[in-house]
């Protein structure tokens, strides 16, 4: 009971920080700082995912997403010097955000059922990896080839400029 309450308090703190950092990512003027804040957002997301019990996914988010993808964004934006001036249409943005907030809240809190499960969740990682390697090896191979092709395409696009 004590652990459940502590987990809920931690989730509330992390959720509030998540929303605050997300707001900063889209409003901070300097794009370099916005990119760095995106790394913080990724770390907060990983923390919440770990709190739910998905430790493997949390590690994956930190290593692959924050450690590689977001670092790539930070380095590129720093090299470009922030990208110059930025024009904004706050009214259009606020209208779209309000609409999406209303629709998502209605969909997730009214129509979809929040699962009744105990936290943290138990994921049998060893069994999962065995299943993936035995049953889904061709799928994994296709994904890896597609990712390699994507990186080659990205290098070609960047060199063309």
């Amino acid at each position, binding site marked *: 009971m004590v652990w459940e309450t502590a987990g809920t308090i931690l*989730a*509330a703190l992390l*959720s*509030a920080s*998540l929303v605050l950092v*997300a707001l900063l*990512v*889209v409003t901070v003027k300097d794009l370099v700082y*916005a*990119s760095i804040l*995106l790394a913080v*957002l990724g770390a907060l*997301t990983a923390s*919440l*995912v770990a709190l*739910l019990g*998905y430790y*493997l*996914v949390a590690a*994956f988010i930190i290593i*692959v*997403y924050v450690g590689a*993808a*977001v670092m790539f*964004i930070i380095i*590129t934006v720093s090299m*470009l010097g922030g990208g*110059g*001036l*930025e*024009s*904004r*249409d706050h009214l*259009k*943005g*606020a209208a*779209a*955000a309000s609409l*999406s*907030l209303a629709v*998502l809240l209605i969909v*997730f809190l009214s129509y*979809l059922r*929040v*699962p009744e*499960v105990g*936290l943290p969740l138990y*994921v049998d*990682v060893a*069994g*999962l990896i065995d*299943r993936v390697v035995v049953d889904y090896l061709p799928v994994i191979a296709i*994904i890896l080839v*597609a990712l390699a092709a*994507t*990186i080659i*395409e990205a290098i070609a*696009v960047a060199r*063309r*400029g």
Partner: protein
Amino acid sequence: MNLTLLLIIIAAVAVASVGVYGLTSSRNFVRQLLSLEVVFNAIILLIAVMLASSPGVATILLVILVLIVSGEVVVIMALVISAYRSGKSLESDILGEEGV
């Protein structure tokens, strides 16, 4: 109802809306990419919560999602570099006028 899951759903929905705000209010390519990544973080949380009754499926789905988004980031940043070299700006309006 599990209060922790409910809190995470509400936070994820709020974060997704913040991302939509950034995506629609700005004309800057990098800002739009950052906003898209904010929405992606919200989607990770929503999938993690909504598939909590089958955590094995959720784990595989989330790992594949992270891989695909990392690839997407690489391609979009390559396009950003290419556009910046051609037009010296990241504003979609200016690049459109110059025919980049």
